[in-house]
């Protein structure tokens, strides 16, 4: 930890502070006061210094961060392709930047990133720092957090956004701790306070039962990880101009303690997170076999199968299908909830869907209150008929976009 007590160049080594210090923590070394480990930051030395050379960093009270400007987005990539959450952050970042009158930056780390960097400019980055080196081809906490920390110190952004992916949620805390700044996890809303110009970071807590708005006042940057599929993606604009800066990477200088021995990609073809249509089943299915029907409906619609947490806990379907606070957040064009009551935790993972349709026996189920259309009935009677209708139309040959 760095001591919050600083002795400036004005110090004459007069020694007044040495006798004032109740902890005997100050010595005069080389004609200058040196604050030792015994310092308890009591503040007695500050006013006694005749030349005002001692300053104490206050933990409270506003500080000036005028030299910290810009919104930085960490552009996570896998196999040289930028994760779409970064485009969402650039979308939000531009909005915040316009409010503040500040630029948008992006940092990308990996190998073979020329296209990625150009894409980031099209998506609105005014400046992109590129750390491109074969040794960085796979993600590792150590080198990535070290590089990202150095990039942040160079850019000095007022705001720093990271996608709350599994990688972002482990990388973010490492970088925040290195930078000695606050980090708000898994935000679902970001705004600028018009008076203080601070970033208001809103996130769910207590399983989504409570929303908390958090700010970082006394350190910079103001860091947040942001949930995927919540913000609106920045559109690609080929006319947008930005600076791409290739940064040198020296692997010998980077700490790298964890070795990646193997990676096994997840099996399923359609990821619920990327699907435009999600057909989800809940406990109302009654039995694991019910997911067969969900699969048929999803296939008819060209979508993916989602699930509520209780069905996953029961082992009816794999965890990767789970929608909700402890599963994935989805934002499809259509979310069709079959036999899902719609607890607040489930809603947290799907309520931003464009159209929500529920089929449920209980008209009082919470899902019915948030659905564009809620059909009160037995899903085993309704879904087969719905599949028929969809198939009928397909075979009738009407071309569809």
């Amino acid at each position, binding site marked *: 930890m760095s001591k919050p007590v600083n002795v400036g160049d004005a110090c004459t080594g007069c020694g007044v502070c040495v006798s004032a210090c109740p902890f005997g923590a100050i010595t005069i070394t080389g004609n200058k006061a040196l604050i030792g480990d015994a310092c308890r930051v009591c503040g007695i030395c500050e006013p006694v210094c005749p030349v005002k050379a001692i300053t104490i960093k206050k933990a409270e009270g506003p500080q000036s961060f005028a030299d910290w400007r810009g919104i930085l987005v960490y552009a996570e990539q896998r196999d040289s392709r930028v994760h779409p959450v970064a485009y969402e952050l650039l979308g939000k970042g531009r909005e915040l930047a316009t409010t503040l009158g500040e630029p948008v930056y992006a940092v990308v780390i990996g190998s073979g990133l020329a296209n990625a960097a150009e894409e980031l400019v099209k998506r609105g980055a005014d400046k992109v720092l590129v750390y491109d080196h074969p040794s960085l081809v796979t993600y590792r906490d150590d080198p990535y*957090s070290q590089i990202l920390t150095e990039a942040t110190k160079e850019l000095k952004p007022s705001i720093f956004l990271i996608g709350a992916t*599994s990688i972002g949620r482990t990388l973010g805390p490492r970088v925040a701790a290195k930078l000695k700044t*606050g980090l708000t996890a898994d935000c679902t809303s970001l705004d600028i306070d018009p008076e203080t110009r601070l970033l208001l970071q809103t996130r769910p807590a207590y399983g989504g039962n409570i929303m908390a708005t958090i700010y970082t006042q006394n350190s910079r940057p103001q860091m947040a990880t942001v949930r995927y599929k919540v913000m609106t993606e920045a559109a690609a604009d080929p006319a947008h101009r930005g600076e791409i800066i290739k940064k040198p990477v020296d692997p010998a200088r980077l700490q790298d303690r964890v070795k990646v021995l193997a990676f096994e990609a997840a099996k399923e073809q359609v990821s619920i997170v990327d699907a435009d249509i999600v057909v989800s089943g809940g406990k109302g299915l009654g039995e694991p076999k019910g997911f067969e029907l969900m699969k048929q409906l999803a296939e008819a619609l060209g979508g993916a199968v989602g699930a509520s947490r209780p069905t996953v806990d029961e082992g009816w379907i794999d965890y990767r299908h789970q929608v909700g606070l402890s599963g994935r957040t989805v934002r499809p064009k259509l979310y069709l909830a079959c036999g899902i009551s719609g607890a607040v935790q489930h809603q947290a993972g799907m309520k931003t869907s464009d159209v929500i349709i529920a089929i449920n026996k209980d008209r009082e189920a919470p899902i019915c209150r948030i659905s564009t259309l809620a059909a009160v009935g037995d899903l085993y009677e*309704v879904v087969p*008929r719905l599949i028929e209708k969809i198939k009928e139309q397909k075979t009738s040959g009407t071309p569809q976009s």
Partner: protein
Amino acid sequence: MYLPFYTTASSLLSTNSGETSLTVGLNIVICIKQVPETTEVEFDKETGRLKREGVAAVINPFDEYAIETGLRLKEKHGGAVKAISMGPPMAEQALRDAIAMGCDEGILVSDRVFGGADTWATSLTLAKAIQLTGPHDIIICGLKTTDGDTGQTGPEMAEHLGESCISYVSQILGVEDGKVTLKRNLDDGVETLEAPLPLIITVSKDVGQPRLATLRGRLAAKKATIKVITNKEMGMNPKELGLDGSYTRVTKIFTPEPHAGGEVIEGTPDQLADAIYRKLKEAKIV
């Protein structure tokens, strides 16, 4: 109590002692948190802080998987499992519950000045407390807590301790020659990693169902002395602790607004299927 030159797997590695007949166990530390049993909690509108009094408290369910991981490591490699928790005096019960599951020891990090800490201040305090209680080979945390939902304390603690950290561990494959091989879940697949000790990990539910407390464990828990560490022992500047030492501030807490709903319809299965189909057409989905 700790011997000053306690041998750990990682210290053996660093001293390069080569072949040894010593049976070296792992010093395992589990970080646990006491959380409200229900996530339906109240908050204090004046202070913007959550009211934790009067709500039944349990070990954070995710931390039980961390305990299970630690106990399995000990069963395989020998050593000791220490549970540590930062919290108010009542959090002592969570540590006793951890001992009932099989942990050897419980340490409570508790002081008024620790109160109101965000993940930065919490991870700093826990890191210092862990250093104070002796050497460790591996620190295991739950994926996140059910109250704060951040999952940040483990990785931030790694940074304070200068150690490496692996999140979302799903399986420990082995510990050998001061190195751990393990699997961890990422969004798009599963990674197999190798990391040197000492190491901090956060574990997912895939590590295995947490065991229940045994009768013997309960008796041990009842008799156990929970060591309490206050800032007197840690000697940290109170400005770096608790609310004062936190970089983030909660400015507002509110209940999420319900999503605006549309129509609720009843009818025969045919009518319902028709209505849904019309809605799908309207939304240009079919």
